[in-house]
């Protein structure tokens, strides 16, 4: 049939966009490392690099979990609070004499439960993600403070607290944890059908539903993964500082969201990757680290971070508009 309606001027395929963004961010990270290496002697020391990798590791894991949620066009404001809360839980369990392996599993399950609660609030109660996770943000801090009676629980388990200081093959264990999370996360988001479903739900949940996607289950899944990543970070933090304290990790949810957004995730949903937020988290960590080394006032660090978010996301928007 020769119905030659003019071929609409569809844009060229944008296969490379994700990869391109990844490369740009990687370039930015490399440039930062190079510049800091040239301007301070302290940067390229094994101690500092290990420190940097440890600093970035926890935000990176939070950001990956957060990205799953943002891809569904949701938001998880509770992750910082979950980190603080679960650090209390694991300290409490260890103090009560629960074996280490059981404490870890129970803490992670606590993350699963919190995520499932978020899913319940969104799917069954019809609450906006912003509201339900904001509510758990404040409540979890409160529950954590109640458990500890406003103070901290110190952890006397040597093996647990030493873990964060150990290296494996010359790389900090905490950074290995990022890889441990990132590889399954990559498989899940980019290679499995559930990853596709996250994107579909974030793009148009009704179309996804009518295509047989279990939208409710997908939403549960996203929030459970995010909260479980946060609980995992809670374990790492408890190991690093050796205490359980509900007020720890204040504002980390914003760090995680910022990392994710810098990494190319769209807050409108349906756009995002695993490598993006990882790079975003380490860019933020490098800026903080570099600012410390250069003796920049820590107040300035916050300002710089804010400006950086604007600049990076603005350039991403420009590129997207150009490609449409």
């Amino acid at each position, binding site marked *: *049939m020769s*119905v*030659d*309606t*003019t*071929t*609409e*001027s*569809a*844009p*060229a*395929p*944008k*296969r490379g966009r994700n990869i391109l963004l990844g490369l740009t961010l990687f370039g930015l990270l490399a440039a930062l490392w190079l510049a800091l290496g040239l301007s301070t002697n302290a940067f390229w020391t094994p101690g500092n690099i290990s420190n940097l990798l440890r600093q970035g590791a926890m935000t990176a894991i939070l950001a990956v979990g957060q990205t799953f949620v943002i891809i569904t066009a949701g938001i998880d404001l509770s992750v910082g609070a979950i980190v603080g809360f679960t650090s209390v839980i694991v300290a409490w369990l260890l103090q009560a004499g629960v074996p280490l392996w059981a404490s870890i599993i129970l803490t992670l399950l606590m993350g699963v439960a919190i995520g499932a609660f978020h899913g319940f609030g969104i799917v069954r109660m019809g609450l906006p993600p912003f509201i339900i996770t904001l509510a758990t943000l404040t409540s979890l801090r409160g529950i954590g403070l109640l458990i500890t009676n406003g103070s901290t629980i110190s952890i006397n388990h040597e093996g647990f607290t030493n873990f964060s200081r150990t290296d494996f093959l010359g790389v900090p264990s905490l950074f290995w944890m990022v890889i441990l999370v990132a590889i399954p996360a990559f*498989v*899940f988001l980019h*290679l*499995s*059908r*559930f990853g*596709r*479903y996250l*994107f*579909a739900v974030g*793009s*148009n949940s*009704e*179309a*996804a*539903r*009518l*295509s*047989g*996607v*279990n939208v409710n289950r997908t939403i549960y899944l996203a929030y459970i993964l995010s909260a479980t990543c946060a609980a995992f970070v809670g374990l790492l933090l408890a190991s690093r500082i050796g205490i359980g304290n509900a007020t720890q990790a204040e504002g980390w949810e914003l760090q995680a969201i910022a990392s994710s957004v810098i990494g190319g995730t769209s807050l409108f949903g*349906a*756009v995002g990757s695993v490598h993006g937020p990882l790079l975003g988290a380490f860019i933020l960590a490098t800026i903080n680290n570099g600012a410390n080394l250069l003796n920049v006032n820590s107040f300035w660090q916050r300002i710089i971070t804010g400006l950086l978010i604007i600049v990076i996301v603005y350039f991403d928007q420009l590129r997207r508009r150009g490609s*449409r």
Partner: protein
Amino acid sequence: MSSLEELSHRHDDQAKRADTVPRGAAILELRGLQKKYGLVEALKPATVTFLAGEIHAIVGENGAGKSTLIKLLTGVITRTAGEVFWCGKPVQLATPTEAISRGINAVHQEVVLCAHLSVAANMFLGDEMNRYGMMRKGAMEKAAQAVLDDLGFQLPAAALLGSLTIGQQQLVATAKAAMRGIRFLIFDEPTAYLTRQESAQLFRLIRRLRDQGVTIVYISHRMEEVFELADRVSVLRDGTHVGTRLIGETNETELIALMINRTIEQIYHKEKVAIGKPIVETKSLSGPGFEDVSLTVRSGEIVGLYGLIGAGRSEFALGLYGRQPVKSGEIYWEGQKVEIPHERKAMDLGIALAPESRRDQGLCLNLPIGLNINLPVFKRLSSGLVIRKGDEAENAERQIRDLRIKTPSRRVLASAMSGGNQQKIVIGKWLSHGAKLFIFDEPTVGVDVGTKAEIYRLFGELLKRGAGIILISSYLPEVYELSDRLHVFRGGRLVASHDHRAGTHEDVLTQAIGI
């Protein structure tokens, strides 16, 4: 003087009053107007004259250049070459502001108003009545109500816009444009989502504006509307202006021939397929929006559901598909009694639904075409948790090829496609799923004649494979010509049934409206 005219005179003191032309004289002349995107010539040099106080229809397939022309006229894009004369003087029309200041306005298919504001607030948006810097809410409501009453719309000015149907919102958008003292008003497929009554109200308004000397450009795929409304009609094909006719000197056959070089019989091409055993049978099925619907779909058969929008056809389809809970009644699938509590059950049985709204229900617009096509079948394309990349690509490529979806790649976003190609993506989703019963809800809304013919041909293919089709449409010629059995819905109930081409158009219409 009517309240509409009073309000529109609020704007008459502006500069545009200066350049008036007598009724019937050329108000807007396009001479060799051309638009290129890179190497693609979206509009080949076109010379068209619009007369003051005429209704000028523009017809053509999707991609024929209609949207390009509208965008040029409203200043959304700038021309590559050619000249535009407004009231005899050359003008730029480089920005939307310039177009609006000259009195050129467009009413779009998708309503662009604020759902959370009242009807009155929307009508006065950007042009509020003020006194001492405070808005005169009461006065605006009163004035808006007067205009609405005057137009016979029977809409409450104080109601929230979001509480109205899409059709009613469209009427508000038109009333708003009419209030702004326009000289030249472009309608882009305005009736796509309107019920018959709403269309009639809109037509009354359009004629009235014409009688006041406003020039109307009316773009539509619906031939009967063009003949009902227009004074003259221009045809575009492949970016070329192929002719302008006085409406009295042309007919549907000639226009279609100009548009696509094919006849009506060739468009509504109906395959003769032997009708087999029942695939699905509903008995007194009731649910939200439909009641006591009993019908049967056999293999090789197209069952048409005709009715006004809101008559319960789409609701019935969603109920059958498990999207809406069914209250009572029974569903038999190939003779077996079944329950369909959710969409996946329907899919597992072998039901496919191409829903009414591509934008809201059919497509994930900001995702690639390939992902959209594969969405229902990712389970089949996966080994364990992981998707087999090769099969994923192959399945998408095959649908794109078979359905002739015009795209350079399966990775292009669905939003970049035209209406017709988007509809093909929705259909492609279900071809790979291998369903036995296909429900097509308004499959040809906003789709050009050529793509329509392709979609109808596809129906034939599906029937030959032994599938059954439920075809829901508000476009009577389509269901009338294609259905082996035609059911008419009114007020949520199935009120009449016809065999293929039994009963006249008028009969069916009367049954649907209920007079």
